[in-house]
């Protein structure tokens, strides 16, 4: 991840603060930074969302295409994730620099969504064994200030909520071949149920305590972090330890419990906000990228 250089004195100052539940910007250990979400920012996609979490900016676009289902599961569609760390974020990402980070982020997203309940894949089936909807979720990192996983997962949830997949009809033509017809009405579309989509919470271990939503400076002081993805019911879909240090088993249990608690409280306000934004409809003032 893009790193900042932090001196020893700064590290000590930060660790002492965290020990007393006070971080550099005045937050407590389990508070998130100010978050702004906007959906439907890119008109060419079927669903999109932009999130700014402090100075981290992430843009997610979802495009639905018709493809062939996977041979092992012919009656389900699937999701494909791709994360692009653009050179916009930091100069380190120029050329192939950001590829490693992008691959790591995509792999985690695949693991997080690798279960039956996150997204109802059966609803993405058009014709079993032949056609299905494939949702290409493309994530673009615009600015990087720590806590990429959390921002990306929230943005994906918002983008999937915003996705409108056109309804299709299968008709048989004269020779018996199947033909797919998209309905002409642009408002006749299918929505995805995002109730069970998990959100990722990254907890960084600093000293003896853990912090949620770490900035780059805080990340430079921590040796290991735990990534946990939680659904609104409190089910855990993916846990990973990141970083080059090791963790005590007791800290892992503590961090898992804290991560689950924080993650669970993230879902309800998010859904409420998304539904409120949608209910504004045409009256909504679009902020876009310059807000």
């Amino acid at each position, binding site marked *: 991840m893009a790193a900042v250089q932090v001196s020893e004195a700064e590290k000590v100052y930060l660790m002492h603060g965290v020990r007393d539940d006070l971080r550099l910007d005045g937050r407590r250990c389990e508070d998130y930074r100010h978050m702004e979400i906007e959906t439907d920012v890119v008109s060419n996609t079927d669903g999109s969302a932009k999130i700014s979490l402090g100075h981290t900016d992430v843009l997610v676009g979802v495009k639905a295409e018709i493809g062939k289902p*996977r*041979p*092992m*599961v012919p009656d*389900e569609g699937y999701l494909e994730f791709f994360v692009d760390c653009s050179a916009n974020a930091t100069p380190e990402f120029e050329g192939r620099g950001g590829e490693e980070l992008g*691959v*790591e982020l*995509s*792999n985690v997203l*695949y*693991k997080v969504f*690798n*279960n*039956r*309940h996150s997204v109802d*894949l059966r609803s993405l089936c058009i014709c079993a064994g032949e056609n299905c909807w494939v949702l290409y979720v493309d994530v673009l990192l615009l600015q990087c200030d720590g806590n990429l996983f959390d921002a990306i997962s929230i943005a994906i949830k918002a983008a999937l909520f915003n996705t409108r997949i056109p309804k299709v009809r299968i008709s048989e033509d004269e020779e018996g071949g199947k033909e797919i017809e998209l309905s002409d009405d642009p408002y006749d579309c299918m929505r995805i149920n995002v109730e069970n989509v998990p959100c990722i919470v990254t907890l960084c271990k600093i000293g003896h305590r853990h912090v949620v939503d770490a900035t780059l400076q805080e990340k430079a002081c921590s040796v290991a972090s*735990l990534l946990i993805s939680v*659904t609104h019911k*409190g*089910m*855990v*879909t*993916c*846990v*990973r*330890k*990141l*970083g*080059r*240090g*090791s*963790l*005590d*088993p007791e800290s*892992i*249990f503590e961090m*898992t*419990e804290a991560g*689950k608690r924080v993650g669970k409280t993230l879902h309800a306000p998010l859904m409420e906000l998304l539904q409120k934004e949608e209910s504004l409809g045409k009256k909504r003032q679009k902020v876009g990228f310059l807000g």
Partner: protein
Amino acid sequence: MPFDTRRIRGPEESQSPLLFLSPDKVPEASSRQGVRGNGDVRPVFARCGLVSQAKGSAYLEAGNTKIICSVYGPREIERKDETDMKTGRLVCDFRLAPFSCMKRGAWIQGSEERDLSATLLESLQPGVCLHRYPRSQIEVNVIVLENDGSILAHAVTCASMALADGGIEMYDVVLGCALGQNGNTCLVDPSHSEECGSWHEGYGENRGCVTVALLPNLNQVSGLNADGEMREDTLTDAVRTCLDGCHKLYPVVQQALTRAVKRKAPPPEK
């Protein structure tokens, strides 16, 4: 995906005959048929010093899972643009041989393998004293010859044995243990058919797979990877069970390492 031009592959439209097999029922709790209990690790065969050209190497067999690992280094780093020259670097390469799984795998490294390499690196790094090898790089190459479940866990154990065999300084051996959760039963060290429901279709309710890498003497967890959908208390119990499994594996690894050392440097004859 890069296209492999060196091998003749079947036509694009061909499908594996495995798709037409009737699906295996996910095994029930008693399916281990008394051969081993739900909480038992499979018996492990481990030997070091297999590959004569490598600095250190190890071979591990657990049930039908066969893994071989070789360690090269410390070598000089090729890229000179590393800002932090005070510590060495560990490079891990995890590969599954194309004949290792039921379905023929591609020889070119897919994203799953890159993910496993990254997890292996994260699990091994806390155990190796990299500050003793500044400006150097240690390469760890793991190949899975036969995949019968828990490959990541056994690869971690095999790699740390190979590092020890190669004389690389470490704080402690890193041991790995895996667990498959299926509803309310948890199976330690699952075989491929016990893990099987996982890879193709995604997990059902309270089903998942947990892999833990532990440094037993320091009691520090260096790697944790959990997949599937589980409740938090189930996850906590699963991690505790894996930690016990790691401790059970320790004597075997100790024995294999002392045997390798005795062979390389035989005690003086009286």
